[in-house]
């Protein structure tokens, strides 16, 4: 049994310790917001926070998360109102939407570390996230907007 805390809830799961966190979250815990895109740390669709750091859950063994805090897109805010989620809605960022759990989770760490990111900061933080639908121009815009919004509210996650 492996115990981990996901979105402020404790889970005991019966998983092979080598199972990637991605599949543990999706198949065993049942949270499907975190996506599978490549399985080899190339696309960022699977990004979650492990103790506040952005990790690619497809290459993170579940054993590494044992006893730690995991945050997924479902736990980013209660009411879909994290500044990034508000900005994503305002700027109509998603097309198919499949990449955006990962995009938002990557951006959340960026904003926490750089509340006022430059375009170069955004490039650095977001280059690991592929969007096949090509929503990049809007991702950039929305991150800037979220930075503005969070000056008012502050970002904790």
């Amino acid at each position, binding site marked *: 049994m492996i115990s981990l805390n996901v979105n402020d809830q404790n889970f005991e799961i019966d998983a092979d310790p080598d199972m990637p966190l991605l599949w543990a979250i999706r*198949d065993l815990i049942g949270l499907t917001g975190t996506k599978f895109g490549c399985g080899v740390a*190339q696309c960022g669709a699977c990004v979650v926070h492990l103790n506040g750091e952005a990790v690619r859950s497809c290459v993170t063994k579940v054993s590494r998360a044992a006893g730690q805090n995991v945050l997924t*897109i479902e736990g980013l805010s209660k009411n879909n109102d994290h500044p990034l989620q508000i900005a*994503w809605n305002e700027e109509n960022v998603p097309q198919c*939407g499949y990449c955006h759990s990962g995009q938002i989770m990557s951006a959340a760490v960026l904003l926490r570390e750089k509340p006022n990111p430059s375009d170069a900061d955004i490039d650095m933080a977001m*280059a690991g996230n592929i*969007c*096949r639908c090509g*929503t990049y121009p809007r991702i950039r815009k929305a991150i800037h907007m979220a930075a503005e919004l969070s000056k008012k509210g502050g970002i904790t996650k």
Partner: protein
Amino acid sequence: MSNDTLSRRNFLRTTGLGSAGLFLGLYLPDAARAMIMTEHEALAADVYTELTAWVLIEPTGKVTLMCHRAEMGQGVYHSIAQIIAEELEVDLASVDIKFAQGNEKKYGSQLTGGSSTIRGSYKNSLKLSASARVVLTMAAAARWAVPIAECYAESGHVIHKPTGKKFHFGELVVEAAKLKAPENIALKPRSAYKLIGKPLHRKDTPMKTNGSAIFGLDKRIPGMVFAAVERNPRLRGKIKSFDDSATRKIPGVTNVIKIAMGVYEMDREGVAVVATSTWAALQGKKALKIEWDDTGFEHVNSLEIFSKQRELLKTEEGRILTTQGDPNGVITQSKDLLDVVYETPYQSHCAMEPLNCIAHHRGDTVEIWGPVQAPNWIQDYISKKMGIAFEKVIVNMTFLGGGFGRKALTDYPHEALVISKAIGLPVQVVWTREDDATQGPFRPGISYRCQGVIDGNKNISAIKFRMAGQNNDHFRSGDNGKANRSTSEGWLKPYFESIKNISFADVTFKTPIPTIFWRSVYASTNGFAYESFVNELAHKSGKDPLEFRREHLKEERTQKLLDKVAEVSGWKNKGKGFGMAVTECFGTTVAQVVKVSKSKGGKLKIDQVWAVVDCGWYVNPDIIHAQVEGAIVMGLGAATIHEITFKDGLVEQHNFYDYKMPRITDIPPIEVHIMENNEDAGGIGEPGLPPFAPALTDAIFDLTGKRIRKLPFDMASI
């Protein structure tokens, strides 16, 4: 009630069975007619007629809309609702949307392709919604015993203007269902639209920012297990033998089965590993030891494919698709012929959501849940292939994490059903990225030979286009002996007015590689060849490429488009490094200008892209902007970053490390403009892609003098 009475009348009636609500439908063979029926009647009528059921208004006033097409990013989930809410007069925010099941009788073709959803249905949707609003208004007027003219509908209510009394729609449905809608209901003029034409927020966005949107891979069915399949890595191979002893030791693995998945008319063999979790299935797949049987078909190599195409184009005339004048005569006599070959690669769709599908084979009924673009094709294929009655093949759509044409194929649902049948349980088959990237079908790689002559007035007097590449239709319906019907796709019709001698031909070229449409289909490759060639002819005649287009595309609508793209890009006072192209795709014409420059270090960079879209009538300008931005990014990847190549019958790319994608760092500023006119609606999901590559390569020519005729090319090498 016979089909006849139903088909000839535009009517409202009630069955007296007690209605659960008001269903709005369209009678398809004569789609101009709107029909309004009770739910019972709609269900009953389905037995006899081809009645659609799109919108349900319940007595509570709740409005539910069925989305009959696939939502794969292009926005139809929202756009259809934006259309219906306009003429029905309901608040868009309060409308619920559900994906319809596969049912061609009710909804017409549900194939989401050819950028067809809005352009194919908007006129009917407008009429249907307006008819419903009118009968609801009539019902209210009757209840109040006031003239209809004193009543109007707004926000899901009918209001009596003089007194301000109101009913919500739900209170009126039972009576409305007994009324007959008048013929010829006047639709709103565009100037009166409250929703259509506005950049409203998509209704599916909130679900896509908190993880609650259910894509195929997220769907869960009670009792479901997981499977992964190791398929023959060569495209037509079989299995000699396999050793699953290591696989069976993996905890969670429950079954290992040899299977065959139908890809068009052939079967592709593989070994399926069924397990209690995705991870166990993937581990089991890795542990398989399989000996493949690859005899009996050609092991293709990319180099040979393209050199064979070039060889054929030297001598073969091909099957003529269309011709006018005498291009051969002009060309043979010309002393100054431009005669060049362009080459475009095979491409994988690589939608962000890898292929996957849930299937449950229950004997004489089968059910599928997944990210699918063509529910009716699945019903058709499965019923024939597995001997199940057509209507017993139930297909449920989820959101698609991208499709781009690949998810219109029926292979992966079939495979899931084969596995479910063998184990007797619902199963979700998960494709790895490697499976998705290497197994196709692919966009075909094509070579184009283009010959052209400039006359004394420096205009084009003759053009002869020949393409040598695989025909997607051959896989679906065999070689009918005719030219590929898409040979002139992408090319603007007004060119036929100005170029007196012109021909398009298709030089038959076949390989065992399965191919299928890829966003914008042949326009994505034709567009590069044909518009690059027009640019080359412009330069040859010493003319500005945009002016050259003006002289060859005299039609008024195209002239306006050219004016607009010149204006927004500052073409008149442009410096070095500008290129342009204009293509037509699925009823929409798009012109693009690309500007490139070199940094001090000599690095080539795209500074800006301007796109002007003429799609006629449109619903949501923001969705159009998004689609064109996305199409340009996808076009950028296909032109400068990735390609699928073959060696010894194997695909050489596997995942995003060797089939690389454009990333946020690669994206130039993109500016999109929409032409305003009252023409019929064109498509939007695809037409933004084809003009990008020829505009980019001409910008590079303008800056450096280097002509690029083969895609993809490496920006860094120029």
